[in-house]
């Protein structure tokens, strides 16, 4: 069944590869993929890292990340064996590094869903070059995030109590009025849907790996995981339907997840947390931080994996513009918080915000403002946006700034509460620092494994947005086929009337 097709009908001499005038389709703007790629070029380019041995740079990064991850694992093991007391928390500051890291990682994940689902619904075809890596980033970030609430319970072996299962304690059910239970459902649903979405998108590429020449074990493994994908039209049609449905589900899901995370704070009466602005503020901040993390990772991947033709300057440009947009929303939210505190007439609210900006933790607040409000302003300039080193530095600043945002919200709101007698400070212990570093180690270990063993760019999607082969080749007019005349005579369409148009992301259901 699988032997190559025999060439039985010689076509008109020299006409198989006609001049590709019709390929200029959509040429009023820059192409999404440069280098005039054919379909097999894409397969070769994207799969080639899998055929080569890892570079010394990869090994260096991997071993370092892995070592840091082990350090984090040791810290967690020590904390679980000893108790949460090994952290720097006290009765006033009961949440600090752990929940900061939790919110930070969840936020990182959200850009992956933005790119894979929301931009899909908005027909943003440039997403195809980055969505695979961004979705992988989502999955790894949610894994990192999930660790923190679980270890903060102090008895992680009882984490299954969060699940409402019939039990011998009466059945004593979980409290569905608690945002912490909402969080459990939101994060687990988000992880499940993201992982499914990612794997579904991977199916056609796994089939490509299975069918191309390569190591035998890899072909067999890819064949097993490709679930028997054979590129049939009917399967593609269903696949596109499911993809659209999942995108439609993931879009409100991603908004709901960070909304619920913000409710962990907003439903409390703590000044600085108890604000109706929190859900949109958190969602925008999540996408802001995640988008900068995507750029950080993709700029490195682009350079080291030679993906310049796929992740072009145009991709960098649109992503930096999204950073400006979401960064502006975040800056507006910071200002609104201060206005609300001022206008509320509530002395506790006012105190928390003046303490944030001028109190003992003011350094963290101004670090946040400098990184999240000031540094993205550089991206208004085209010269900065087209300078990859500058963009890289700005994204690093934003990553740091968004971590500090969560730290500021959590710690500066808690450390000086209603009663001055309760005031306290907070310093992270070495165990907390090691755990936080370990989560970074886990993230980069997973990501480095991903770039080695999985196609980093969704081949099946990028092929669909190439300029290649869009219009009929134009050879072979209906005069060559008697059947055509009998059958109504619709010859090859001209590019102008082609219903496929330029809308690569079009899906019918």
């Amino acid at each position: 069944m699988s032997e190559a097709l025999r060439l039985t009908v010689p076509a008109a001499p020299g006409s198989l590869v006609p001049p590709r005038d019709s390929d200029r389709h959509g040429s009023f703007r820059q192409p999404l993929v440069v280098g005039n790629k054919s379909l097999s070029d894409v397969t070769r380019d994207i799969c080639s890292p899998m055929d080569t041995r890892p570079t010394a740079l990869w090994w260096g990064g991997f071993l370092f990340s892995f070592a840091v991850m082990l350090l984090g694992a040791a810290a967690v093991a020590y904390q679980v064996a000893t108790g949460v007391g090994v952290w720097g928390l006290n009765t006033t500051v009961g949440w600090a590094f752990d929940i900061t890291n939790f919110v930070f990682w969840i936020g990182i994940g959200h850009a992956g869903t933005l790119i894979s689902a929301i931009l899909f619904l908005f027909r943003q075809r440039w997403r195809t070059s980055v969505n695979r890596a961004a979705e992988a980033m989502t999955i790894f970030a949610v894994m990192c995030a999930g660790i923190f609430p679980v270890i903060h319970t102090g008895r992680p072996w009882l984490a299954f109590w969060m699940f409402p299962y019939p039990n011998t304690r009466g059945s004593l059910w979980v409290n569905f009025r608690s945002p912490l239970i909402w969080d459990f459902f939101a994060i687990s649903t988000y992880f499940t849907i993201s992982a499914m979405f990612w794997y579904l998108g991977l199916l056609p590429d796994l089939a490509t790996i299975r069918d191309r020449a390569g190591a035998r074990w890899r072909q067999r493994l890819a064949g097993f995981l490709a679930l028997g994908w054979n590129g049939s039209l009917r399967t593609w049609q269903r696949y596109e339907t499911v993809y659209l449905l999942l995108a439609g589900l993931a879009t409100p899901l991603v908004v709901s997840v960070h909304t619920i995370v913000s409710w962990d704070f907003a439903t409390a009466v703590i000044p600085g947390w108890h604000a109706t602005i929190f859900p949109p503020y958190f969602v925008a901040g999540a996408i802001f931080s995640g988008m900068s993390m995507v750029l950080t990772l993709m700029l490195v991947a682009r350079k080291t994996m030679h993906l310049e033709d796929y992740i072009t300057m145009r991709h960098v440009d649109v992503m930096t513009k999204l950073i400006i947009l979401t960064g502006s929303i975040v800056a507006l939210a910071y200002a609104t918080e201060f206005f609300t505190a001022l206008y509320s007439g509530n002395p506790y609210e006012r105190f928390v915000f003046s303490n944030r900006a001028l109190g003992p933790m003011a350094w963290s607040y101004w670090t946040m403002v400098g990184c999240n409000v000031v540094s993205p302003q550089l991206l208004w300039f085209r010269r900065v946006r087209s300078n990859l080193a500058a963009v890289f530095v700005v994204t690093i600043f934003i990553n740091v700034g968004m971590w500090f945002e969560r730290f500021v919200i959590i710690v500066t709101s808690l450390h000086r509460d209603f009663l001055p007698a309760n005031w306290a400070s907070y310093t992270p212990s070495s165990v907390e620092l090691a755990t936080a570093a370990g989560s970074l180690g886990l993230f980069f270990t997973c990501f480095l494994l991903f770039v080695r063993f999985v196609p980093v760019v969704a081949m099946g999607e990028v092929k669909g947005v190439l300029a290649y082969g869009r219009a009929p080749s134009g050879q072979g007019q209906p005069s060559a086929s008697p059947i055509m005349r009998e059958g109504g005579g619709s010859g090859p369409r001209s590019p102008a009337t082609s219903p496929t148009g330029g809308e690569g992301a079009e899906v019918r259901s």
Partner: protein
Amino acid sequence: MTRRVLLSAFEREGDVLAATEACRKAGLKIVDVFTPYAVHGLDHAAGLAPSRLPWVCFALGLAGAAFKVWFEFWTSASSWPINVGGKPWNSLPAFVPVTFEVMVLFAGVSTVIAFLFVARLFPGRRAAVIDPAVTDDRFVLVVEQTDAAFDVAAVGRMLAGFGAVAIEERVEGGRR
């Protein structure tokens, strides 16, 4: 049951779209089209009916949401009501977030399972690959030779006219 099919391979999306549409308009029976990526408009060209999977998504999403509202009500207000800060037993607004999450979970998971089921995709399944190049850069249109009146030469000429780079006859045993 065996059937004779005519395979034609194309290198360009535009060619296979035009050829598929022409075959359908000529009244030929299109068995399948194998493509390396989702070719938009090909299902219309081949006259394929839309998938019914959105109904699965809708029905199971609704079922998941309904189940969860009932479950939250039953656990919080009936099975073992607990007074939490004097809130009402039946705190419907507080049940909204989890209901939404469970709706998304049910709708998403069931849609994917239904897709894998109807497309007969499962781990370890041996793929019926018509040509290894269809997952790389080849488009293969499969037309059934329905009866003796099927003129292989004429159809072949037509397909070649649309830019087919290879044409082959095959006998298939049963369904692929």
